[in-house]
């Protein structure tokens, strides 16, 4: 019997799919598996695709898959959709636009629900990227949920982040916050046949060019591209720019390459530490007889939840007097 990690590294679809599910469901067993597959990660090129809802991200991803496949590259896709805050359920519909690739063995597509996580991704996205990386996918496309304009968490995990905007959709350039501008390695104006595409491009150019000093020192100047993903127009150029950016990252400057990687590792480790601390502390508190007793006392009216909470938390954190 092969271990899960071995199966994943061998590219076993079922094992990959199930491991991502376990990561998504927060199963504690996954830690060992992730440790085991870690040495096999770091080879994939990760692309983040973000932008407002209706910007055509899924269609764009669908077209990007086609172009990357033509180059002979294998592709993994993580498509994030929002979880309903009312029911906790979700309809994950991004896949519909990519479903034509479902029979292609070089493509693996996985839909994920945010499950209350903010930032445009899911808690499990980082882990899922590692799994697709370890299974040997050359490119991993991460499509964020795109609810607002703050969702640029994907930047931390991606080598290249693409910001998709649409002319005249109310998400005018003025509305794009500075953080987003900094996050974008490539700006893509989708549905560029619509009125206002030129103006959107001009406005973007103006804002990006503000920092001339940076570019003089050799920083990457984000290109602004126009596309109509539905008609497969401008997507080849986009893929070309992604390669350019990749070369810039990996060939032209070693510092930048390391810097990017270092940022990613630091962020990742911070996140992991944060999550782990929460998990351990919460388990330490909630999985005790004391906790159950506290619940009973609140129900019976012997105490109130505020007092009970204090009595449970403060000693556990070593803060009680």
């Amino acid at each position, binding site marked *: 019997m092969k271990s899960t990690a071995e199966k994943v590294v061998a590219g076993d*679809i*079922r094992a990959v*799919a*199930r491991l*991502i*599910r376990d990561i*998504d*469901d*927060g*199963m*504690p067993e996954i830690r060992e598996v992730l440790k085991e597959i870690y040495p096999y990660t770091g080879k994939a090129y990760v692309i983040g695709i973000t932008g407002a809802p209706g910007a055509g991200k899924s269609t764009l991803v669908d077209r990007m898959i086609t172009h990357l496949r033509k180059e002979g590259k294998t592709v993994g896709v993580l498509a994030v959709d929002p*979880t*309903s805050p*009312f*029911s*906790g*359920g*979700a*309809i*994950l*519909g991004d*896949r*519909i636009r990519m*479903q034509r690739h*479902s*029979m292609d063995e070089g493509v*693996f*597509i*996985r*839909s994920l*629900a945010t*499950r209350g996580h903010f930032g445009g991704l899911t808690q499990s996205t980082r882990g899922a990227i590692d799994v697709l990386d370890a299974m040997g996918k050359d490119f991993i496309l991460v499509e964020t949920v795109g609810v607002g304009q703050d969702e640029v968490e994907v930047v931390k995990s991606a080598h290249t982040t693409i910001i998709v905007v649409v002319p005249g959709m109310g998400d005018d350039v003025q509305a794009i916050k500075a953080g987003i501008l900094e996050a974008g390695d490539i700006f893509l104006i989708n549905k560029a046949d619509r009125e206002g595409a030129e103006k959107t491009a001009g406005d973007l150019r103006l804002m990006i060019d503000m920092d001339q000093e940076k570019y003089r020192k050799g920083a990457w100047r984000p290109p602004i591209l126009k596309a109509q993903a539905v008609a497969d127009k401008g997507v080849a150029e986009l893929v070309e720019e992604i390669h350019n950016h990749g070369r810039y990252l990996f060939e032209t400057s070693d510092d930048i390459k390391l810097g990017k990687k270092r940022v990613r590792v630091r962020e990742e480790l911070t996140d992991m530490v944060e*999550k782990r601390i*929460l*998990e351990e502390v*919460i*388990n330490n508190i909630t999985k005790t007889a004391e906790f159950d007793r506290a619940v009973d006392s609140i129900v019976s009216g012997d105490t109130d939840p505020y007092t009970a909470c204090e009595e449970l938390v403060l000693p556990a954190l070593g803060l009680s007097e």
Partner: protein
Amino acid sequence: MAQKRKVRIMVAKPGLDGHDRGARIIARAYRDAGFEVIYTGLHQTPEEIVEAAIQEDVDMIGLSSLAGAHKYLFPRVLEILREKGAEDIVVCGGGIFPEEDIAALKKAGIKEIFTPGSSLDEIVKWVEDNIKPR
């Protein structure tokens, strides 16, 4: 953090017919019941449905059909699931079928068939009672 496992369901429309009113309503009802639903859209072949179901690691596939091709398409989905070693994924069907067809489909391994007589609550309840996320 250990959270409860979520039920994941694929709602799929095999074949060429475009009657997706039922499939879309069911997808919403499942969402409103707290499940994660992957909807494949229209005009899917059985092969495409199974491949997607495996990649998405769903617990159940709900097939919807309204143009008479269910007799070929539904069993074909089961057949491919077996070929791929994924027969643990439960398959249900929805649509309007003659009694004899329902019996035959169940015999072929379709776990349950829902017809317009089944209320959304019943359809959701069936999942809650019968589908245990792994």
